[in-house]
């Protein structure tokens, strides 16, 4: 039995305010009714491409697979004037291979999931060692998982202390804190965990929805709760925290709905890839397919687009 942290959640919730689930879902349903056409669609699709963290996180990943992912990140599609994606996202063991494939002189960043992703169930020193080695191998960004057990037990100090330790281990690398929303279950918990993380993050660090390894990943609802937390934190402290929904965003249409949420909640300041990312893999080709359709007026068969990242 743990020592117990009575009323920890109640106190935090009093401070940051609760979330009404029905209200959040009604709000986000309106985003999906926005009609994004013509030039605004092309702008939105290109923006989404530039925000993709192109991801492969599988036990069967190999250096060659990662190399093909990196090539795709640099050149999403021939014949279309599209931006490069924001980053590739790989396991720590693949960071050096990604660095070799991308080279030193590239705008595409290397993100690595560390801290015993996805469960985080390893001793802290092991998790920190993993972070340091990923950074040493050339990772620009570290995607960590929070200690959900500590959070759910009300041990907020411990949860935050671990984030701080990882943050310090990152050095200059950007930190992304994965809340794993499906294990937090309620919107109240998602808001609370967002605040606990943001309070120890540096400007430009991220909070991220999920690992993509559980049943429920990014939804417009949990994205909205986190965007509102970021907005409230920014307006109160002036510290801009970035956001990354991950997992489950597979279509261009979904991505545009997420961008509508960003535009209408956080405004123009977050409509760029230093403040907003999509953790996804199959999304990229759907974005490209839609862009090709806008250009040519016809949908192209999927096999016209190179497959370099079929997971997630």
């Amino acid at each position, binding site marked *: 039995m743990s020592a117990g942290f009575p009323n920890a959640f109640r106190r935090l919730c*009093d401070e940051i305010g609760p*979330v*009404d689930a029905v209200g*959040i879902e009604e709000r986000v349903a309106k985003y999906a009714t926005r009609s994004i056409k013509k030039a*605004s669609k092309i*702008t939105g699709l290109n923006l989404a491409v530039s925000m993709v963290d192109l991801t492969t996180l599988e036990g069967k990943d190999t250096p060659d697979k990662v190399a093909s992912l990196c090539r795709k990140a640099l050149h999403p599609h021939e014949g279309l004037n599209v931006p490069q994606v924001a980053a590739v996202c790989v396991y720590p063991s693949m960071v050096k291979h990604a660095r070799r494939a991308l080279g030193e002189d590239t705008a595409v960043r290397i993100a690595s999931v560390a801290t015993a992703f996805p469960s985080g169930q390893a001793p802290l020193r092991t998790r920190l060692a993993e972070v340091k080695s990923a950074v040493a191998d050339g990772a620009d960004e570290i995607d960590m998982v929070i200690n959900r057990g500590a959070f759910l037990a009300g041990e907020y100090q411990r949860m935050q202390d671990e984030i701080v330790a990882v943050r310090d281990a990152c050095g200059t690398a950007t930190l992304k804190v994965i809340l794993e929303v499906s294990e937090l279950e309620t919107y109240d918990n998602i808001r609370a965990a967002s605040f606990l993380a943001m309070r120890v993050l540096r400007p430009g660090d991220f909070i991220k929805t999920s690992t993509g390894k559980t049943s429920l990943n990014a939804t417009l609802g949990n994205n909205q709760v986190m965007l509102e937390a970021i907005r409230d*934190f920014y*307006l109160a402290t*002036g510290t801009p925290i970035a956001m990354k929904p991950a997992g489950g965003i597979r279509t261009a249409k979904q991505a545009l709905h997420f961008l509508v949420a960003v535009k209408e909640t956080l405004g123009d*300041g977050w409509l760029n890839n230093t403040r907003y990312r999509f953790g996804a893999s199959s999304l990229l080709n759907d974005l490209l397919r839609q862009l090709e359709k806008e250009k040519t007026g016809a949908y192209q068969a999927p096999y016209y687009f190179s497959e370099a990242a079929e997971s997630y």
Partner: protein
Amino acid sequence: MPTLTDKKPVRPTNRALGRPAPELIFGDLWEYDPAPETADPKLKPRYELFIGGKFVAPASGKYFDSINPANETKIAEMALGSAPDVDAAYRAAQKAQEGVWGKMPGKERAKYLYRIARLLQDRAREFAVAETMDNGKPIKETRDFDVPMAAAHFFYHAGWADKLDYVAPGRRVAPLGIVGQVIPWNFPLLMMAWKLAPALAMGNCAVIKPATNTPLSALKLAEIIQDAGLPPGVVNILTGPGSTGGLIMAHPLAAKIAFTGSTEVGKVIMRSVAGTGKRMTMELGGKAANIVFDDAPLDQAVEGIVNGIFFNQGQVCCAGSRLLVHEPVADAVVAKLRNRLRVLRVGDPLDKNTDVGAIVSRDQLETVRGYLDAGVKEGAKMWQPPCRLPAKGFYMPPTLFTGVTQSHRIAREEIFGPVLAIITFRTVDEAIEKANNTEYGLSAGVWTDKGSRILKMSTELKAGVVWANTFNKFDPASPFGGYKESGFGREGGRQGLLDYCKLV
């Protein structure tokens, strides 16, 4: 491990002094392109009266124009009904009532109602466009609310038509006869459904007049009524000015009259029918309080406030036009509201991305502007988000007033426009007292995380509907109606049916 974290409060303590407060930028970095709804509203240049199942020219030979408030152009000519037409309509209704409809078994009547509901669904897009053109409300509202909800009312009451023995347990029910109905311009088609569906399900015939400003969807519904094969005379639709409505209310053949509109006109009607033995239901004005406590989920409350007062440009009788906000969170709520209003899109109602459309008429726009002047003159502080309004048409940006007290006119009178009066309170009792301190009592909203407080408030608030942690939610099964000068009688649910029958 190094020391870790000092717990940082959310309040702006770690912001460098002297630096400007952080702000969000809602600019045009990624602007939505126009997305007009292009479905054909299938309009005719001229609409006649609908009497005895046929479209007939008015006895006066006169017509009036229906105007699109979004661009001030003429949509169609509407027949101007007068006394001989009203009389013809009642004769047709009497014939239908005595000959067919009153005697028809409920399960047969249900078939017609189901047919109307399905035909309305089939033509939903067309009706949504026509309604938006006539009324000025955004297409997303007509498409997602008005038309589907109108169909839902026909479906719901069709379901009742063969179960009328269970409307009043232990009693039998019988139709009243002919009902005269006059409806407002804020939800032209939906109010028509609210009035006709229960009347018809119960076996009554109707003579109904849509509002002078918005007669179009009523005559389009007449086409559906014809297509559904409803026996001639069961529904008769007369268009015209307010005086035509007066004639409908005054006609001796009416067994009941039903009115939705302003309290002022409602009082005139009630005086005119006093002593005639006609039954009445009145759904009149409102000045609803939306009450936000400090423990409420504030972002969702803000969404509810916006939905409460800017839905249909605030031209809603149950609009949450007074915001009562708990003092500890008053500044936070107003700040959140402002940020939310900055992303509301005001403009062409036919654009699928428009959130706030046009006010129904120039007169109404002038009335609302008069209230803005009154608010400013009486010392309240007005705020409107920056927005570009179209050059033509009757537009009004969403408007907030802070520093409002109970004695301001904008806090007492029904404005029927996108204008929110923000009043603060300190205790639960004060909130209740302020909420009830009005001649109206149609609706109210309560926002709190505390369940017991919701129950207390819902018993203490003198309002026909109390929404908890939501606002402006409707369902055909849920009775709707007012207290005090907001009227009497209910629409929807079993209670609504009871207002269209006699117990035998």
